[in-house]
């Protein structure tokens, strides 16, 4: 299938994939309060508005705080779990690993409802901490998978070499394992950050009426009054995702991270 036909097929699908984003980008440039494409009286007016209009800056700040902290929690849970599964194996670590991956395999509404009743029972329903913790647990999967991949790529001889040179188990972890896994841990953090930023249903169910995030705000705007700011937020989200994944693609090995090869490196 290395024919021209194949390349054409890929190009057409990529074009279709990018098309809605182009339209949204165009819409965000409208001068007035309307969603036309091609845009009329093109200006960057709404880009400034996002950071000025009080009803958008709040959700913007909420989203950023939630994503930053939740991704940190996800890494904090995933890292010891990945290390444990890698260093010991065994039934317990398999069970834990499955638990870590499970939230991502199921329809998110189930997890969302689970968190809803949980926080209601604890009396934390509607608080930002609830959203953050829920996202943190929901997104454990991503750093768990990337970190495990990174750990599997480490040559066991490096660990033995460190031991023969006098390093204790803790020192081996600190001076060899963590530095080598760091790029994968950072990738995991980045994945979790981007996905938390875009997550809707859990944020909505756990604290949708009190802690508005950007996706919730966009959805509300879809119902109660369109504004080109929605286009602006979409453009920023797409831009951020491309930036993050692009960086991983440039500094890391994206095909390997997504499971293309089983080679060792490092």
């Amino acid at each position: 299938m290395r024919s021209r036909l194949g390349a054409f097929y890929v190009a057409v699908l990529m074009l279709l994939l990018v098309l809605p984003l182009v339209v949204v980008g165009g819409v965000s440039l409208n001068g007035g309060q309307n969603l036309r494409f091609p845009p009329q009286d093109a200006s960057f007016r709404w880009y400034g508005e996002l950071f000025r209009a009080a009803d958008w800056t709040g959700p913007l700040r909420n989203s950023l705080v939630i994503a930053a902290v939740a991704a940190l929690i996800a890494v904090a849970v995933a890292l010891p779990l990945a290390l444990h599964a890698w260093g010991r194996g065994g039934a317990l670590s398999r069970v834990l690993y499955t638990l870590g991956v499970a939230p991502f395999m199921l329809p998110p509404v189930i997890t969302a409802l689970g968190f809803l009743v949980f926080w209601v029972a604890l009396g934390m329903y509607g608080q930002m901490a609830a959203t953050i913790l829920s996202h943190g647990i929901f997104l454990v999967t991503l750093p768990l998978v990337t970190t495990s991949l990174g750990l599997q790529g480490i040559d066991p001889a490096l660990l033995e070499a460190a031991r023969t040179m006098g390093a204790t188990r803790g020192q081996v972890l600190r001076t060899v394992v963590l530095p080598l896994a760091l790029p994968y841990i950072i990738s995991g953090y980045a994945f979790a950050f981007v996905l938390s930023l875009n997550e809707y249903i859990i944020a909505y169910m756990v604290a949708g009426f009190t802690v508005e995030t950007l996706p919730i705000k966009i959805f509300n705007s879809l119902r109660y009054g369109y504004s080109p700011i929605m286009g602006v937020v979409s453009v920023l989200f797409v831009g951020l995702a491309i930036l993050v994944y692009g960086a991983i693609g440039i500094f890391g090995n994206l095909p390997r991270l997504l499971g293309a090869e089983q080679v060792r490196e490092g």
Partner: protein
Amino acid sequence: MSGRDAATPTWLGLIPGVVLAALFLVPFGIMLAVSVALRDPSGSGFYTWGFELQSYARVFTFFVGRILFVSMTIAAGAAVISVALALPFTVILAQMSRRAQTVILVILLSVLSLSEVIIGFSVSTLLSQTAGVGNLLALLRITEQPRAYTPSLFALMTGLCYLTFPYSVLVLYPPVARLDPELVEASRTMGASPLRTFFGVTVPLLRAPILGALILVFVFALGSYLLPQVLGRPEHWTLSVHITDQAVYQSNLPFAAAMAVVLLLAALALVGLALLVARERRAA
């Protein structure tokens, strides 16, 4: 990982163990308890603890049955279309240079991580009266007047395919990328055309991964919540929408929980099936 002792201390597993048990298993346990709790008739609180199967009785009614049927049909349709489009795409992608692969993967990942809200908004804008397709067709004088194509089943399916296509590619990517290229080359040297090779060699070799991908994409589409509301009509609403509706607007948590438990069991069964299929492939 020396021959003498493990690379990590034992207590390291305790942290994720405790956290996941407390924040993941306990919520599911509570949800299970809520699904058999008594609905508070006063409407002030959500429910009172107790045991009754009334919520489950309601799940197995014609009303919920139809919702489940609609959800599954829509999800299955989206899964089949997406995987059918994604399979040749992935096969070609895996043969590209690492650079080209990285660029395309970056775009796919970016689209995949986009909020359903944004995808819904983008597709609805594209299909709206004032922007995108409607406008374009009017400009080209194919139609008299710009018209909107949303909300409709067509818009919903477009949105769902847009949502699931990158996911399908990424699910198919590992098995396709690890496929021995010599098998395909062997077929080519024996005179088979690229198309014939694709259907005669590549597809049969990938039968198990394709089946696994279909199931996973189906579950993924089943979970979509915003697209049916933004792009579809009320009759296209999925179980996810109804669960949220019951939980948040009707304040009927026990019923919502019962539906979620049923959805959970269905999804678990399907994911288990997908994993089983994948394992059989490895054993073969």
